[in-house]
């Protein structure tokens, strides 16, 4: 038994190293084949991978199917957009908060506000379970979506574009390769942190929530607190991902919070494999590359993607990471 576990562990470890090497080498690769504009695509994949991995924490490990994760993604994006808007304008937000285009101000703000939004929404939503939880998270996300639409000062429906990207001391974020590596470092940093957290007592308790809440409570661990902590952490990380996405595109719009975005994130998590953490990044890569390839092939790519998704759910269970790493869920 011990031998078997060690063998599996090695295979997953090799896969992780391959993935890490791919992420690091990607900018060289696209430059070598003479397609440097693909760096932006790579950055988008890593950002969505970050958001999907944060969703995996609550869906895959905690068993809480949130259908509103795009809300926190959008909150992070709008924090960056609104701060940049006021920095450019020279006005103060609500008359007190000055704008900023410094990454070291805007990104932590996005994390904090994403987390606070998740704390508030989670505190209410986690009183329900199952279908009701899916729908109430969707409802809260819809509220924030319509809030974004009604923000006429910040573009309303049309969204808000800003430039330049947030500034980082000592780095030129306008350079696509530098920005890519900034995103890569944040993603890898989060994955390491999340892995450590999942291997700690918190992670065990979180899986306990998924498996049997009542038994967890009988062991003296209150499920509600664990769930809320995980939900808040996931929201904060999604806020960071939204901030990065806003910077990548230099544009924010209500599209960031659209309910189909929450659906996309769930698809990425499932595609990669529930409760595999790294699988979500793989799922994000596969979905975005699939979309890009199909879109180049036909304008009506969704007519292909839809049935592909249905077939994947029906016939290929367990996700890509499990297939490649030879493991089932954690």
């Amino acid at each position, binding site marked *: 038994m011990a031998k078997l576990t060690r063998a599996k562990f090695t295979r997953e470890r090799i896969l992780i190293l391959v993935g890490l090497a791919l992420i690091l080498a990607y900018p060289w690769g696209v430059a070598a084949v003479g397609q440097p504009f693909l760096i932006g695509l790579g950055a988008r994949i890593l950002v969505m991978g970050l958001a999907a991995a944060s969703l995996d924490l609550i869906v895959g490990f905690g068993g809480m199917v949130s259908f509103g994760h795009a809300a926190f993604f959008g909150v992070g994006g709008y924090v960056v957009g609104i701060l940049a808007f006021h920095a450019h304008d020279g006005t103060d937000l609500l008359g007190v908060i000055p704008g900023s285009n410094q990454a070291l101000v805007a990104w932590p703000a996005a994390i904090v506000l994403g987390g606070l939004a998740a704390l508030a929404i989670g505190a209410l939503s986690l009183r329900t379970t199952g*279908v009701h939880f899916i729908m109430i998270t969707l409802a809260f996300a819809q509220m924030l979506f*319509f*809030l974004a639409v*009604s923000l006429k000062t910040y573009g309303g429906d049309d969204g808000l574009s800003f430039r330049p990207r947030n500034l980082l001391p000592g780095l030129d974020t306008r350079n696509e390769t530098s920005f890519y590596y900034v995103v890569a470092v944040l993603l890898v940093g989060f994955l390491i942190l999340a892995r450590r957290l999942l291997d700690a007592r918190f992670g065990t308790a979180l899986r306990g929530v998924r498996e049997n809440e009542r038994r967890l409570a009988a062991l003296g661990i209150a499920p509600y607190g664990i769930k809320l902590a995980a939900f808040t952490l996931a929201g904060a990380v999604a806020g960071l991902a939204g901030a990065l996405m806003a910077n990548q595109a230099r544009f924010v719009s209500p599209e960031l919070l659209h*309910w189909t975005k929450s659906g996309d994130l769930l*698809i990425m998590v499932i595609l990669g494999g529930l409760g595999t953490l790294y699988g979500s990044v793989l799922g994000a890569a596969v979905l975005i590359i699939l979309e890009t390839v199909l879109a180049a092939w036909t304008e009506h790519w969704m*007519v292909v993607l*839809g049935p592909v998704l249905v077939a994947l759910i029906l016939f290929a269970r367990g996700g890509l990471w499990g297939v490649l790493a030879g493991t089932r869920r954690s």
Partner: protein
Amino acid sequence: MLLAEQILNGAQFGIMLFLLAAGLTLVFGIMGLINLAHGSLYMIGAFAAAWAGNATGSFLTALLVGMGAAAAIGMAVEAVVLRRLYARDHLDQVVATFGLILFFNEAATMLFGRQPLFARMPPWLAGSVELLPGVPYPAYRLAIIAVGLLVALALYLLVARTRLGMLIRAGNSDREMVRALGVDIGLIYTLVFGLGALLAGLAGVMAGPVFSVQVGMGEQVLILTFVVIIIGGIGSVRGAFIGALLVGMVDTLTRAFLPGLLKALLSTSEADAVGNGVSSMAVYLLMAAVLLWRPRGLFPAHG
């Protein structure tokens, strides 16, 4: 007078939501399936009816083609895809039916283009009726309310008074037990799903001349339909009816009056923006409030 008109508008919108919610809540309650593609059946009904109506000029043909198309496609999808999802967890169901939405929306775009389709009103319902002195109201919208009330009554009789209804209620509370008693539950599943698809198609046909027939119309109404059944309590047709009227009223009345009320406090353009934002959020606030007060909805079907 304006208030009376808006209350009727709210009732009409609520009735439309009820037609969708009734099918969805039964499918939800009996098969345990979250079907995001229910809105696609509504869209299919609307498109098929608009196409048939424009080709033949007859509203009756449009009605039959719309409902028939929604029911036929719905039952085909149930047999090919959804049946395999009943035993899966909600997450799989959400993602698979999300894939179906992508497919149906894009297929509709390929067949009919991105421009909204024109759906004609039957000429004998094109006029308006003076309900109260000085309050003319479009006859077509009144007809929608009447049809919806008839459907509600028929559904009530079906569920409460017939053998099939008894089996539906039994399936709602314990499908394994119904199966164990020798009832062909697969047949009941297909019938219930077909009934739900038929009603979604009917809603789509009737919505055509009032709202625009275009790709994406299904999702707008789908999310509200989910709000309705969550408020009403999953599996309960009565809950769906009351929830639908509640949501229809709240949505319509806040949209109609909130911007005006806010003008007392804010400048005109700000009041419009904030009013529209808040009224779009109102139904979701209502749902959140109901869920926090009664986590299983107002009329949970069992337990």
